[in-house]
């Protein structure tokens, strides 16, 4: 059979290029700036939303008990939280899929179900604590929780069900920016600059030594700064936003910026608690603290702290509820995108609405066991965090999945395994305190 060779000139080949909607600019720096602003979102939100109602309570309590002497822990947590979320960025951009889906696929059904059930349970209990904080804050603002909580819940639902990822993201980024008001409060209440700098840079054990209370608070600080839902949230958010391989460095910058904001704001919360300590103010929750400090700090600080408590709870609720809805949608194979209208992703949106509505409803029940729920959250989160980190670490070393380009480098693994070992140790210390309460001397 004769074989004919057909020669085609490259000039004859016409490649159809797609038409895309974009912004045309002339300068490279403007191109970079605008690209960064377009990518900005998932990293900032996951970090700032981590300063939720539970975090406000924990940091303020740390300040009230130990002044500014635990600020150095936040400095250690700053790169830790960034390194963990940076791995999530690589996994999300490379696969375009959520964390729950990857655990199911690579570790099998047993671990997939375990991770999902644990996430949904911890998330739901955390949502209850968010609405409990909203209840406390609105009460101190003179609004009945039977009005304040439903308004917050409806607002949270409307924010999400519009069928536009961008509309949700821009609203939440604005709430993140509002969180910077803590800087103003900390500036007003500040101790000496020397004390702040010293306690931030120089690790030290407060007077009284290593007590059970101190250990519990340190573990609570670590557990509130690095939360399991963050891994699921950011990866799903990156997948929903369809971040590209070329966006990876901007996504890292977005996350780094978020880490800076969240740690700085956490420090400001500790400063507020420290002010209460030095002025002999006793309280059981941040809302009480704000009220008790009014005669010293003025009405503005009082209202500011209460509104920021609500802001923290709203941020936490939307992020945590979305992490639940995305994870469940991924595993069930449902359409699960904020870009889809309600009728095209009913399962996904109903999961979100259900989480918010049930948690809001629970706190309005008279004599609901809120203290037990708050304790349960701390215990379950302490159990879940090490397992979530282990799966993340194993996935980021999975060359079959990610290829050479996106797997962890050796230094990544050294840092991450150190973090994992420390987290395991802290969880075991917490458990040991339960079994042997006299392990550490009491305060």
């Amino acid at each position, binding site marked *: 059979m004769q074989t004919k060779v057909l020669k085609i000139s490259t000039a004859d080949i016409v490649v159809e290029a797609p*038409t895309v*909607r974009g*912004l*045309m*600019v002339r300068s490279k720096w403007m191109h970079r700036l605008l690209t960064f602003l377009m990518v900005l979102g998932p990293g900032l939100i996951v970090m700032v939303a981590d300063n939720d109602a539970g975090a406000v309570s924990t940091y303020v309590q740390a300040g009230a008990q130990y002044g500014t002497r635990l600020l150095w822990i936040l400095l250690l947590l700053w790169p830790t939280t960034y390194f963990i979320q940076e791995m999530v960025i690589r996994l999300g951009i490379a696969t375009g899929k959520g964390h729950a889906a990857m655990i199911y*696929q690579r570790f099998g059904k047993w671990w997939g179900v375990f991770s999902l059930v644990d996430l949904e349970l911890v998330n739901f209990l955390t949502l209850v604590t968010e609405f409990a904080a909203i209840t406390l804050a609105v009460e101190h603002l003179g609004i009945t929780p039977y009005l304040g909580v439903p308004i917050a819940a409806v607002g949270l639902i409307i924010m999400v069900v519009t069928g536009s990822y961008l509309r949700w993201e821009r609203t939440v980024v604005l709430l993140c920016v509002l969180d910077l008001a803590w800087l103003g409060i900390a500036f007003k209440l500040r101790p000496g600059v020397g004390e702040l700098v010293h306690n931030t840079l120089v690790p030290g054990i407060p007077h009284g030594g290593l007590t059970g209370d101190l250990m519990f608070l340190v573990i609570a600080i670590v557990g509130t700064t690095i939360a399991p839902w963050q891994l699921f949230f950011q990866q799903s958010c990156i997948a929903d936003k369809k971040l590209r391989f070329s966006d990876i460095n901007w996504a890292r910058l977005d996350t780094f910026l978020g880490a800076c904001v969240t740690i700085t704001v956490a420090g400001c919360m500790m400063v507020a608690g420290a002010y209460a300590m030095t002025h002999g103010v006793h309280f059981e929750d941040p809302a009480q603290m704000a009220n008790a400090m009014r005669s010293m700090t003025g009405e503005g600080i009082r209202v500011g702290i209460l509104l920021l408590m609500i802001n923290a709870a709203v941020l936490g609720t939307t992020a945590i509820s979305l992490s639940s809805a995305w994870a469940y949608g991924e595993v069930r194979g449902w359409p699960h995108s904020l870009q889809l209208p309600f009728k095209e992703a009913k399962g996904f949106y109903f999961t979100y609405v259900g989480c918010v509505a049930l948690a809001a409803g629970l706190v309005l029940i008279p004599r609901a066991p809120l203290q037990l729920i708050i304790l349960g959250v701390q215990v379950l989160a302490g159990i879940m965090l090490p397992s979530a980190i282990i799966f993340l670490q194993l996935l980021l070393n999975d060359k079959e999945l990610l290829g050479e380009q996106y797997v962890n480098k050796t230094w990544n693994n050294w840092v991450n395994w150190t973090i994992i070992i420390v987290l395991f140790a802290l969880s075991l210390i917490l458990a040991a305190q*339960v*079994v042997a309460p006299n392990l550490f001397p009491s305060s």
Partner: protein
Amino acid sequence: MHFMPVTMDVNLNDLPENHYLVVHPLNDVPEEKIDTSNLGPMAMTPSVKISLLSLRAYLVLMMGLVLYHVLDLAGLFGHHG
């Protein structure tokens, strides 16, 4: 003003010289990601096995401790009135 960016639909073949196009990820052409559809469970290398076994041991220990604490609080061990 000439430096004000303008949103427009642009064919990538027709981009003028010395101009840059900033495209939001949600408006961009879908990118091909790493294909995970043919991947099954992760290969159980020794490090993966050790990690997962350690995790199982940790979870069993922690759940046991939680159960102990709950039963202790309920007074089953006779410590609480």
